[in-house]
C-alpha cells in the first residue's frame, strides 16, 4: 500500500489527536483494535486499499510468552496473517491458476480460517485483537508472486510451530500445535511442488544431512513476517 505524503500527514494528525485526547491506555487499545479489525476487512474485501483509512497502530498487540496463552496468541497472529492472504487469493485467484489450483487454494483458505477461528475461540478473552496486514509486496494477479508468497508463509509457519513446541506446557495445546503444523507442512509441500516439481522438501528447508525441517524462535519468525503485518507486535518474556 502506497501512501501519499499528504495522507501520511493526515494520519499523523489523526494519531496525534488521539494521543492528545488523553484517552485511557485501555480504551486507546480498544480503539486501535477496532480500527485494525476494520482495516483487515477492507484489505480482505477490496484490493484498492486506501492509505487514509489506516488506523493508529502504535499501540499494537502484545505477545506475552510467560505462559501458553502467549504461544497460542503467537500462533493466532500467524494464522490471522495466513487466513487474510488466502482469503484474498481464493476470492480473486490469479488468471494463471488451473481449476484444481483454484480449488486447493480455496481448501487452504478454509483450513487457515479454521485455524484462526479455533485459536480465537480457544483463547476467548485472552485473545489478541485483529492484526492489520500489508500485502503490498505481493502481486495478487501474478501466479508466481502468489505462489512464492504462499511458500514463504507456509515454510515460515512450519518453522514457527516447530520452534514453539518446547515452549508449550499444556499437553492438549502441544498436541493441537502438532495437529496444525503437519497440515501447514502439507500445504508447504504442495505449493513448493507447484513452483518447482519435486521441491516439496528441498534443501533450503530440509537439511540434506540431518533430514530435519526448520525450527525458528518467535523473534526470528516475527522479524520475517514483519513486512506483512502493519500492526505493531510487541513481544515480552521471550
Amino acid at each position: 500500500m502506497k501512501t501519499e505524503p499528504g495522507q501520511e500527514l493526515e494520519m499523523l494528525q489523526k494519531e496525534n489527536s488521539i494521543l492528545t485526547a488523553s484517552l485511557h491506555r485501555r480504551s486507546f487499545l480498544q480503539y486501535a483494535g477496532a480500527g485494525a479489525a476494520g482495516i483487515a476487512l477492507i484489505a480482505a474485501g477490496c484490493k484498492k486499499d486506501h492509505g487514509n483509512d489506516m488506523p493508529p497502530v502504535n499501540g499494537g498487540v502484545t505477545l506475552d510468552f510467560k505462559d501458553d496463552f502467549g504461544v497460542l496468541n503467537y500462533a493466532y497472529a500467524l494464522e490471522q496473517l495466513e487466513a487474510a492472504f488466502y482469503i484474498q487469493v481464493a476470492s480473486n485467484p490469479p488468471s494463471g491458476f488451473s481449476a484444481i489450483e483454484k480449488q486447493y487454494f480455496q481448501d487452504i483458505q478454509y483450513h487457515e480460517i479454521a485455524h484462526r477461528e479455533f485459536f480465537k475461540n480457544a483463547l476467548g478473552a485472552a485473545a489478541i485483537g485483529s492484526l492489520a496486514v500489508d500485502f503490498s509486496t505481493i502481486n495478487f494477479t501474478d501466479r508466481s508472486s502468489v505462489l512464492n508468497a504462499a511458500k514463504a508463509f507456509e515454510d515460515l509457519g512450519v518453522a514457527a510451530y516447530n520452534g514453539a513446541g518446547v515452549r508449550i506446557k499444556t499437553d492438549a495445546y502441544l498436541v493441537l500445535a502438532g495437529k496444525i503444523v503437519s497440515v501447514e507442512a502439507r500445504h508447504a509441500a504442495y505449493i513448493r511442488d507447484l513452483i518447482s516439481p519435486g521441491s516439496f522438501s528441498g534443501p533450503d528447508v530440509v537439511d540434506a544431512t540431518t533430514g530435519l525441517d526448520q525450527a525458528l524462535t518467535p523473534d526470528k519468525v516475527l522479524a520475517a513476517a514483519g513486512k506483512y503485518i502493519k500492526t505493531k507486535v510487541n513481544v515480552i518474556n521471550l
Partner: protein
Amino acid sequence: MNIVNIIEEIEKVDGEIYERLSPRRSAMKDFYNMGKKVAMAAMPMALGSMFTKAYGQSTPSDVTATLNFALTLEYLEYHFYNHAVVNASAIALSGAALTAITTIRDHEKAHVALLAGALGSAAIPVKAYTDFDYTGKGTFPNVFSDYGTFLAVAQAFEDTGVRAYKGQATVLKGNAVLTTALQIHSVEARHAAHIRYMRAASGVSIKPWISLGPGGSSNDSGVPAADPVYAGENTTSQANINIVGINGNTGITAAAAAECFDEPLAKADVLTIAGLFIK
C-alpha cells in the same frame, strides 16, 4: 554445517539445556569446536554423543522408548524406499518420480542416523531390509512391482509416521529432543503430501492433505486395507470446539474441518500397523 546450527537452535529454544549442561559447559564447548572439524558423515554420531552427554543417565526411560519407537519406524521407511530405489525399474520408477523417492529415502536414512546416534548404546539393534515384509504379510503382493501399489503403501507409511510422531509429542514435552522430533514430523508431512501428489498425478483421486473418505469416513486413501492408518482422521471437533461452520464461516464444511487438523495415533495402534510389515 547445519548440525552445529541445530545445536544452536536447540540452545535458543530450550532454556533448560543450559541448566542441563551447566556442569559440563567445557565439555559442550569441546563438542562445539569438534563439530566444526569432524567430517560430515560422522556428525550424527557426534550429535548422539552430545545428547548422551547432555541428558545422560537422566534421560527418562519413556523418552528413550519413544526415540526407539521412532527409530523402528524410520528403519521401516528407509528400507522400503531404499529397496524401491535400488529396484526402480521393477516398479517403473524413473525421472522425477525416482528423484523424489530418492530424496525421501535420503531423509529417512538421515533420520535413522540421527535417532540411532542420539540413542547411542540404548538404540535397538540395527534393522536390515530382510527384517521387514513389505507385502504386509501378503496384503500388498505387488508392492515392488506395481507403481500404484508402491505409492499407496508409501502414503500409508508417511501418514502413519506423521500420526506416530504427533502421538508422542506429550512424552517429549519440555525436552530438547521434542524440537528434533517436530523437525522430523513436519518432514514426514511434506513427504506424505508429495506422495499424495504423485498418486494424484497417476490418476488417483487424492488431495495432498487428509480429507474425508467415502460417506464421511476417515480413510481417504482409496485402500480399504489402510483403514487403521486413518482411524479418527474424520474428527471435526478440536478441544470441544466444533470446527464445522465455526463462527459463521459456512465454507468450513465437515471435509475442510477434518482436513485442517491432522490427528495423532497412539503408539499401540502404530505398532499394530507397523507390525504387519515387520517379520
